[in-house]
């Protein structure tokens, strides 16, 4: 698949060519959206919105990394949904314990006797990471997702988030430290090969 040719065709209005690009990048775009949003449904909405927006504005793509351009689009789509959510806050359907208290992260502790042991290591790691990502402010979250999970260059992250390079560096450093603190709390739950070492625990 020649990506540049497909992009050129898409710029001429060929939807089939664009959809071939969609099939190529949908996993990456969805994963980014999922890490930012933290929910499947919202991530799916953001992904679809991002692809629609990408096709509508594909003529604004002036070369360079199509992946970065697409990630910027999905980041914007996520921000839009988060803004709407902020304007119209909804009550999450968190399970409530017998004492009437909300159970946080039910996937973690809903049924520790059976589920934790049965879950695969990668699932546990994913849940830990997602839990900690959700605790980060959205600007920090986006930067660390793009830089460390999607392995984008600093300049690409700056372009995607429309922030100066210095801001990206600063946010990334802060986000990494906060993630480290959060993941430390899950030290016991993380599979041994993923456990974080520190001076306190060694």
């Amino acid at each position, binding site marked *: 698949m020649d990506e540049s040719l497909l992009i050129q065709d898409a710029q001429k209005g060929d939807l089939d060519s664009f959809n071939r690009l969609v099939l190529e990048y949908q996993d990456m775009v969805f994963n980014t959206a999922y890490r930012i949003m933290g929910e499947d449904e919202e991530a799916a909405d953001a992904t679809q919105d991002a692809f629609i927006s990408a096709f509508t504005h594909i003529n604004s793509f002036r070369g360079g990394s199509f992946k970065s351009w697409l990630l910027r689009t999905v980041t914007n789509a996520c921000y839009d949904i988060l803004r709407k959510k902020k304007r119209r806050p909804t009550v999450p359907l968190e399970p409530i314990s017998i004492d009437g208290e909300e159970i946080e992260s039910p996937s973690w502790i809903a049924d520790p006797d059976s589920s934790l042991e049965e879950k695969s290591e990668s699932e546990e790691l994913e849940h830990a990471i997602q839990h900690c990502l959700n605790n980060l402010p959205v600007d920090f979250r986006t930067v660390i997702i793009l*830089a460390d999970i999607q392995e984008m260059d600093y300049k690409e992250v700056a372009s995607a988030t429309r922030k100066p390079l210095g801001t990206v*560096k600063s946010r990334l450093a802060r986000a990494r430290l906060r993630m480290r603190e959060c993941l430390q709390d899950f030290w016991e739950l993380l599979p041994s090969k993923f456990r974080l070492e520190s001076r306190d625990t060694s």
Partner: protein
Amino acid sequence: MKFTSFRHIIKLSSYLDGKVSNSEEKRIKDAVSENQDSQEVLNLLQQVKTLLKKTPQRKVSRNFLVTEKMVGMKPPIPRSVPVFRMASVTAALVLVVSFTISDVLPTIVGPKAASVALMSQRGEVTAYGVGGGNPDTAPQSAESPLAPEFIGNDEVVPNTESGGPAANMPESLQAENPVAKIDTLDQEEPRFGLDSIQLGILAIAISLLGLAVGIRQYGIIKWRKRS
């Protein structure tokens, strides 16, 4: 260099990603080797980075293909539509020309000329009609009751009012006599309205228009179902 400052942590983070200048890199390397705190911070950042790199990728539950409806594109026109569009235009033109000849022309050039034009259009005027024609096709037989009058192109055709032979002919012969027919038309009102040919053309034109509209609708319905 102070290692506890957040500025230094940012530099360590950038160093981890290889985003510092050569001189800066050397300074950080020296600092890390000399300072335990700095080394620990670097390790923590490295651990997080490594861990995040291992984040499992989720498989998408569905495809996110973009449809024409989503981006508000117009439905595609079926291939046959341009052909039928052309046919519709042609049919409309034929209709206009037909009406012009039959209805508008008589009012402009006068009923008599229009009648002749109409007859010419129908091929009813022969060589022995008004204005002459091909004398070879005209009957030259001496037995014909009209033979004396059909001498040549320059011969003026007498009309019934001047007491010519056509006026004295029986009605049965007059019916077959083209000269008499022309004179009869002279006295009649011009014909308006549609004859069978025009009705046929009109029917074809309407059918083609209907067909074109039908095919377009079919194309739109098919596109809507698909999308």
